[in-house]
């Protein structure tokens, strides 16, 4: 007699791999054949996981079309089955899968769009944190500014792109079909974060991307100014002040500190 464990293993194999061993465990009763009854579960498995990916990667699915996206979903679930109790995390490995796996790896737009969409998923329910206001900066004595360090919002992510991913995402939001874009002249970085309950994003200018990356690694304000001289020469300090004000206005900064990054 089949044990519980054997039966579940055979059921799992039927649902995920189309294995036929479950057939011998299933009663023949009036109505659908055992094969058809098993197929209800197998079809539901594929449909449910594909649906989860379609929800998280809506624009990627629109770009690829239902048929090709379904092929991708089947390949992905075979390689990266769900290992988390919530379907929310099932799609987490898709950007990397697209980067590594042909034929999708031959079209880098797909992985880049996926990475951007997953950043939006992550920003949606990442931890809350209260941003500082401009008033908080008024208390900082002038002598402390060079050593000023920043802590950034836990939802903040920086996505590197070589294609105009944000424009593509917006186009897919507005149109049913979109031409695949040409690469950007220069690689760019897209900032994704949540401001209050609203998920926001924008493509950064190169100087901001470099400056923000430095500050997230704990560099003091003086180093930000220094980094910005490449683009702004003697105006670097003024540009640094503008960036800082922008970041505060965007709700990106949750604490300011001295030489050691605030924690």
């Amino acid at each position, binding site marked *: *007699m*089949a*044990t*519980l*464990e054997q*039966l*579940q*293993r055979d*059921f*799992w194999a039927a*649902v*995920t791999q189309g294995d036929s061993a479950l057939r*011998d*465990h*299933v*009663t023949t*009763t*009036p*109505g*659908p054949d*055992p094969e*058809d*009854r*098993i197929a*209800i*579960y197998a079809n*539901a*498995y594929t449909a*449910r*996981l594909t649906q*989860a990916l379609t929800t998280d990667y809506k624009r990627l699915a629109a770009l690829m079309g239902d048929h090709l996206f379904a092929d991708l979903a089947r390949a992905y679930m075979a390689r990266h*089955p*769900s*290992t*988390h*109790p*919530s*379907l*929310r995390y*099932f799609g987490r490995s898709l950007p990397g899968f697209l980067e590594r796996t042909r034929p999708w790896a031959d079209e880098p737009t797909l992985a880049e769009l996926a990475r951007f969409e997953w950043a939006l998923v992550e*920003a*949606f*329910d*990442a*931890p*809350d944190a209260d941003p500082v206001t401009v008033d908080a900066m008024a208390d900082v004595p002038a002598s402390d500014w060079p050593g000023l360090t920043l802590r950034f919002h*836990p*939802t903040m992510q920086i996505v590197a792109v070589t294609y105009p991913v944000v424009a593509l995402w917006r186009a897919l939001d507005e149109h049913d079909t979109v031409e695949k874009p040409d690469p950007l002249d220069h690689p760019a970085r897209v900032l994704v974060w*949540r401001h209050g*309950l609203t998920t926001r994003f924008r493509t950064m200018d190169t100087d901001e991307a470099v400056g923000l990356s430095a500050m997230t690694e704990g560099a003091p304000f003086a180093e930000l100014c220094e980094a910005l001289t490449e683009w702004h020469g003697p105006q670097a300090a003024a540009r640094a002040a503008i960036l800082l004000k922008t970041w505060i206005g965007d709700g990106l900064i949750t604490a300011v500190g001295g030489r050691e990054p605030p924690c």
Partner: protein
Amino acid sequence: MGRLTNGPAMNRQVSVHMAPPATNRAAERPFAGFGLGLRPDHFRTIVDTRPAVDWFEIISENFMVAGGKPLYYLDRIREEYPIAMHGVSLSIGGSDPLDAGYLGALKALADRVEPLWISDHLCWTGHGGQHLHDLYPLPYTEEAIAHVVERVQRVQDTLGQRILLENVSSYLSYRVDAMPEWEFLRAVVERADCLVLLDINNIHVSAINHGFAPGDYLDGIPPKRVWQIHLAGHTDYGDYVIDTHDQPVPAPVWDLYESTIQRLGPVSTMIERDDNIPPLDSLLEELDTARTIAARALETANGDT
């Protein structure tokens, strides 16, 4: 509807001391009224309009997140309404070990929500570390009963309260089955001293798919352990029916609900809609239908409530 308090750890040993007279603790079924499944589509409307819903049920896994909208609205809505927690990934009948991380997250969410009660399904949902995210039927055997009972007791010890287990809809049955589903359900909940979330739609769906009489099911369940009822819709594919939760509650499910309430007396009832989600107003109308049918059922019941 006032808040209901959860009892302390309710394993048999404790209940002997906690229950004032020597009555079965399961007799103390609370009645929370008529609720709805809480879905993100309705978050704003609920906060803005405070609809006449007695309580909401959340899908626990959807709120096991760090922050953002889900927890913001959960806290706001919890300020105004009682909330029941309904999980889909406990896999109480699974042969993988119970997931301590998952149970910890469930406990943490329960501490935040202080729910009416916590429920999951009498089924298994994964194997070999993989989550299949579906509710698979168990074989109705003594082996499975013993397996589930032991796990329910450990879950109840961890959570410090009894849980409700829901009957699932199923599309196949096993050769090893040694009893009907309702006998299996009854044996599990009585031996584990847990409670029942009775899904009327699932009884209807499984009755068609397996060819049993829904009345036999209702006669076979332990009435006083049924603390909650689910109502939902399904899709008819001709020679079988699938539990899709994407349609209004259909006439046969209303009929079965009426005879359930006649047998059981007042049971907290909610409508579960997971797909093709309509505006809140249309669910409120359906909930009024549930109120009307329940009231009629109680009038015509044999006075044994």
